[in-house]
């Protein structure tokens, strides 16, 4: 009896502990959100979105150049990364034999695991060194390298999810394989592919390390993509490690804006996907 009571006690203790673990881990997200809103909301105002950063001590500065800069760098990453991820994914799902796709899948996973700072070094060696200056191009290229593996695997996964009967139906009607892919398979998988794209953008939007020595930073407007460009994550970093109170407030505000963007993108991706599933069922 004593033994059974002890086993039941252990059972209850350990199971409650797993509950505690879950509570602790899930609550971290709310702690993060809470701190950012608490510290950042006061500094997110009209000036933040429209003005340039000011010297410490001057009130009313913003991060307009960093917001636009992030947009430019991400746009470059999308323009380079999406075709590679999308077309490469089509190859893996529809054309590939056995060995070549396996090799490419393996290297994509490898690339996905490369620390972002190492991606930064690579972009520096092949773009910044030959061009002899930092630029949004180099930053966008570095980020595109982080997007490609996500896009590639998402495209492949969702194309494979399209039922074979659709493929066969299209081929039986006399369409070529290319026509089948373009008119039947890709449209059927478009929600999934779009999700992959959004998640890819959300992932690179917050990346700092690959931008530190590719697009660098800029306190002013960059007049072209060929110049050092300010981005939100790098701005947060430089402002946070500075000794100035004013800049810390700006860093919190930028952190709040960035986190909001990333979380909204993630929720949007989930929404698009769930709608796709509903549409297929309905």
């Amino acid at each position, binding site marked *: 009896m004593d033994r059974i009571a002890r086993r039941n006690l252990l059972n209850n203790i350990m199971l409650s502990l797993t509950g505690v*673990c*879950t509570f602790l881990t899930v609550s971290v997200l709310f702690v993060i959100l809470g701190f950012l809103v608490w510290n950042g909301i006061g500094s997110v105002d009209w000036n933040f979105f429209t003005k340039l950063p000011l010297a410490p001590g001057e009130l009313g500065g913003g991060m307009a150049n960093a917001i636009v800069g992030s947009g430019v760098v991400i746009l470059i990453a999308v323009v380079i990364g999406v075709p590679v991820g999308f077309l490469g994914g*089509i190859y893996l799902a529809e054309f590939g034999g056995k060995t070549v796709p396996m090799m490419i899948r393996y290297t994509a996973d490898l690339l996905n695991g490369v620390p972002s700072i190492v991606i930064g*070094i690579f972009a520096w060696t092949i773009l910044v060194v030959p061009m002899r200056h930092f630029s949004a191009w180099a930053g966008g290229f570095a980020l595109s390298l982080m997007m490609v593996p996500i896009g590639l695997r998402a495209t492949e996964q969702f194309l494979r999810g399209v039922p074979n009967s659709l493929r066969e139906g299209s081929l039986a009607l006399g369409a070529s394989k290319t026509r089948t892919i373009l008119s039947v398979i890709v449209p059927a998988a478009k929600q999934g592919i779009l999700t992959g794209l959004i998640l890819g953008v959300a992932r690179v939007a917050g990346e700092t390390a690959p931008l*530190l020595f590719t697009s660098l930073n800029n306190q002013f407007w960059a007049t072209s993509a060929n110049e050092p460009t300010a981005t939100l994550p790098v701005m947060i970093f430089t402002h946070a490690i500075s000794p100035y109170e004013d800049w810390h407030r700006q860093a919190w505000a930028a952190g709040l804006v960035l986190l909001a963007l990333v979380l909204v993108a993630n929720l949007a991706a989930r929404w698009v996907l769930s709608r796709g599933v509903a549409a297929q069922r309905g």
Partner: protein
Amino acid sequence: MAAPPQSRARKFVKLLVNGDQVSHLVTLLFAGSVFLVTVMLVYQLWIHSEPSRGKFGFSFLWKQVWDPVTGEFGAWPFIYGTVVTSIVALLISVPLGVGAAIFLAELAPPRLSNACTFLVELLAAVPSVIYGLLALFTLVPLMRSYIEPFLKKTLGFLPWFTGPAYGLGYLTAALILAIMTFPFIISISRESLLAVPREQREAALALGATQWESTWKVVVPYARLGIIGSVFLALARALGETMAVTMVIGNNTSVHASLLAPGYTIAAVIANEFTEATDAVHLSSLVELGLVLFGLTMVLNAMAQLLILATTGKGSKRD
């Protein structure tokens, strides 16, 4: 026999639209570029680290000096800091993550389990610079004023908890890494626990095991490869993590036994010194550090992939 130009153009267009060979080739080129870029990445790291490799050879890995003024560079303080912070991080995040995964896979109703998993996965999406921002302004003061003095008072007889409490240092970096890694552990461990066949649980319960005993002695061992795989993946993440660590590690290039002391990691020193390095040997030493980091994470990732494949490929999902 020359065909009229118009029909030749039309033929070409037809070839493009219907030509499966063409689209095969085009998509292959794009997919192949992934392979090409990865090979180039290794090659570029290799040639750009040449001055440092040539000058220091393998002793670069265990030399303790990092002095840009005299031009002496050794990687040991950074390798040490990277490994120590990552391991301490895992000591915290593995029990927490596996515990939560057990709750989510075995106890929680599916609706709650999915909701919690979604929230945890959102946590993985939070940019690392934001973790750094929070750590710098909330965790560091907390560590300096409360946690580190407390550790010194209670565990001060151990060499790991001695010296002044700066707030910045190995332990703070490890804590933030623990928070950043447990989403991976939870989501992958949960998947492998869910992949354990239902009969395994029923058999244990039928033999009179309590729910905890069935979970701990039957289900967890069954899913162990996947759980270990998730730990390796988390370790690879922790080793390569840059921004959050850079902001709280304390930037000190000597090796300390105490976890409270400020230190350095590979990723942090690259982030801090890369744009300031003017000397070729300094710069190539930083690139070589990147190469070392690349090698470390590659080995860990490959092992993690194999382990995760071995488990989730095996069992059938709980229904």
